[in-house]
């Protein structure tokens, strides 16, 4: 391996690492606030990327029907609750978000020539379709069992993942796709060529991380989420609704997932099930941080990205084996920091 190849691999590793870092942050966030181990995080990556592909191909993205269906289901549940609670005033807002919004999206996608829009607008459309699935998913699937043990929530997460992969195959087919890069620019940095897309990925990730940091430090909602993460009961007693915290968290997780998908779609071919492996690598990173520390998770993500890039050079057949086996020494290290026998939730 010469210097040039090393630099190339390093560039690859950092690009992927940036994506894993984003996903790891989302996973840590979701776990801290809701105790859900969010296995379907990766599906939002695929859904985001492939929805964009369909929009660019001039088709109506099938995901919008899923959004509408889930919206109708949630509306049915919540309208009943609202009526039973004698709060008909809430109906307008409920129906607006759950039903009118997806319908409006469908109408816009049908009438506007989205195919010929600039890429930024297409991306906005893709996000508008995929991201609201996050809070809807929380409402329909996790909220009814929010108090269940972590283990049950985990099994549910795996079930959701499995269902979403199946739906993904139905929506997008088995073929993989790529999107055109955000920019064709190439920069010469010393001896290495850096592609515009790499810079897009790294810069967007950094911007998103800083924005999240600001959100958690400066805004009331951000602080509410942090409070929930630290002490669920205490936050609830202070008037922070766990359901709201859950939906907000899932909104952020879906946003991060879909955006990650959009960012890497020009670099890697995305299949309906690609997201899972990407998401799992985010998990390996999050576990490095003990599912609790954001900076450690980010560092773990870079480690995973670089390890993956270099092992694809030295032992490409065993790339995945190496990355996922990394978790074992990490777990070992965590278990050696031993503890007493404790009760689990």
């Amino acid at each position, binding site marked *: 391996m010469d210097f040039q190849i090393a630099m190339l691999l390093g560039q690859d590793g950092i690009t992927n690492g940036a994506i894993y870092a984003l996903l790891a942050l989302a996973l840590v966030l979701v776990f801290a606030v809701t105790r859900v*181990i969010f296995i379907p995080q990766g599906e939002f990556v695929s859904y985001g990327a492939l929805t964009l592909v369909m929009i660019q191909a001039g088709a109506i993205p099938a995901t919008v029907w899923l959004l509408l269906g889930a919206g109708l289901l949630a509306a049915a549940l919540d309208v009943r609750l609202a009526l039973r609670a004698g709060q008909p005033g809430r109906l307008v807002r409920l129906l607006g978000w759950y039903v009118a919004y997806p319908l409006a999206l469908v109408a816009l996608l049908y009438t506007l020539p989205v195919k010929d829009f600039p890429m930024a607008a297409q991306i906005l459309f893709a996000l508008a379709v995929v991201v609201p699935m996050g809070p809807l998913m929380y409402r329909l*699937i996790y909220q*009814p*069992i929010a108090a*269940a*043990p*972590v*283990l*049950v929530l*985990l*099994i*549910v997460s*795996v*079930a*959701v*993942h*499995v*269902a*979403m*992969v*199946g*739906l993904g*195959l*139905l929506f997008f*087919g*088995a073929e993989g796709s790529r999107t055109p890069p955000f920019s064709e620019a190439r920069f010469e940095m010393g001896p290495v060529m850096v592609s515009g897309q790499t810079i897009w990925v790294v810069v967007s990730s950094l911007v998103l991380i800083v924005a999240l940091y600001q959100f958690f430090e400066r805004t009331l909602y951000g602080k509410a989420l942090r409070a929930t993460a630290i002490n669920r009961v205490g936050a609830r007693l202070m008037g922070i609704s766990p359901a709201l915290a859950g939906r907000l968290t899932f909104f952020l997780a879906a946003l991060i997932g879909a955006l990650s998908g959009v960012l890497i779609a020009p670099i890697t071919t995305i299949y309906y099930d690609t997201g899972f492996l990407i998401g*799992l690598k985010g*998990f*390996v990173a999050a*576990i490095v941080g003990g*599912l609790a520390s954001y900076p450690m998770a980010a560092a773990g993500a870079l480690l995973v990205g670089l390890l993956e890039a270099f092992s694809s050079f030295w032992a490409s*057949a*065993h790339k*995945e*084996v190496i990355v*996922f*086996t990394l*978790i*074992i020494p990490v*777990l*070992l290290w*965590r*278990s050696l920091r*031993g503890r007493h*026998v*404790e*009760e*689990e*939730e």
Partner: protein
Amino acid sequence: MKPMFSPRLILGVFLAVLAVAPLVLSPFYVTLLNYIGLYALVALGLVLLTGVGGLTSFGQAAFVGLGAYTTAVLTTATELPGWLAWAGGSPWLALVVGLVFTAVVALVLGSLTLRLSGHYLPLGTIAWGISLYFLFGTLDTLGGHTGLTGVPPITVFGFELDRGEELFYLIWLFLLSAVFTTQNLLDSREGRAIRALKGGMVMAEAMGVNTARSRMIIFVIAALHACASGWLYAHLQRFVNPTPFGLHIGIEYLFMAVVGGAGQVWGALVGAGVITIAKQWLQDVLPRIFGQSGNFEVIFFGLMMVIVLQRARDGLWPLLARLVPVRATRRELDAAAEALPRKPLPAKGEVILEAKEVTRRFGGLVANNNMSLSVRAGEILALIGPNGAGKSTMFNQISGVDTPTSGEVLFLGRAVAGRDSREIARMGMSRTFQHVKLLPTMTVLENVAIGAHLRGDKGVLSSAWRLDRNQEARLLNEAARQIERVGLAEHMFDAAGSLALGQQRILEIARALAADPCLLLLDEPAAGLRFKEKQALAELLRKLRGEGIGILLVEHDMDFVMGLVNRVVVMEFGEKIAEGLPEDVQRNPAVLEAYLGGVE
């Protein structure tokens, strides 16, 4: 009244149907039943692991793969390395090698991940599930993604089982023996320890159960079941490739266990049946509906799991069991069983517990300062004090849950510090908990029998094959004796969770007594008891004292304490402010000030 069937009858009918099935069913259905049997074997391991033990694995398919690939390689390889040559060519030898190999892999993976808290283990299993799957696909000796062909059939006494209908009997023999041995195991000394893993680990450790070992046991058993299933699978299919050992199949196995009823041995069979048949049917129907081919059944499985976990977390088995009225069988106690041997008690009046200048700091807070106390055999010492005085901290130092910052605690002349609760239990110190720690779904009898864990020694294998019955009868007899002694005999077979709080506290005392202790630590035993119950408890404690047991009591209830105990130690702000006879302590001005406030 509905007619009630005996469980034996239902089992007999089931076995008869099974025996006839391959003779009358078409090959298609026999194949289906074969697969149900294979999957149920894996799901059964998960029932033990997840439903009973509270550990979750998504990686069982990888263990199935280990079993399948081991036998495929050993029975098809033309050239084996010299040290393995003896195992070549014979499926039965390959089964043995596979089981040993799987056990080793499970031990290694288990020792890496089992000590971690709940959610790391399943995440770890996802990771190694994927790793092993990719490894199956990339190793040349395993045939890469095309796999290995030409696996020979299994022979039994020279008879080749090369048709599905013949292998059917072997598959179901494996499954049924696994079901019965698992059932037997759960109904034994080791089984009670395993059933305590979910929600009762701290208690179980205090009763001398090595919970880490129990976790490892069920992890390895689940892996071995999976391995055996893989072995049968390889000889049924006659070829292996990596596909059936991937993570998605591992997930499906877990779904089977959960859908069937993760806490139920027979639930594994129901779950495997439901999922296998539904899969067959959906794979047929869905591609026609959607107009394209693909594994769309996973959409339904995923949604089904969500609904099951939202609506019926115990799975389908309890719902099914309600349809068939089975007579409940009650455990028979064997009154003739020989009593368990008892440890000799120390001579009355001998100091058995001595705390010397114990200090415990939490950061800047001094919870215990220079505390000394001693308990003699055949006396009751009460440790009292207002809320926040540091009694519970002191209790933890003595019972070995916590380690003093300085000072030492001697029990029977040996230091307690640094020993774990198991060892302390073995030395003869037994305890109850301030917040009752019981296994609510188990009977009073079984709960108390956990206390006698260290007085038995039969392990997993003898339990599984019922070689432990003699000792088991003695253990249960001992438990029953203690239950009668504390006055709970009429509740012997009730679920522990159905007792009133006061009775649950008494149950804890029976459990502690079942360990045959010479020192009993009781944390607020009278809390929540009615007057009569308190009198009965006091009577019991007097009797125990008379037998020569030393008792340390942490208590709030002054009336209860004053009429009962020999000596009192009073704590306030982490320090001892008085010690002596109950009457003297009651008149002590420092004590009066601590309890009633000073006179201005």
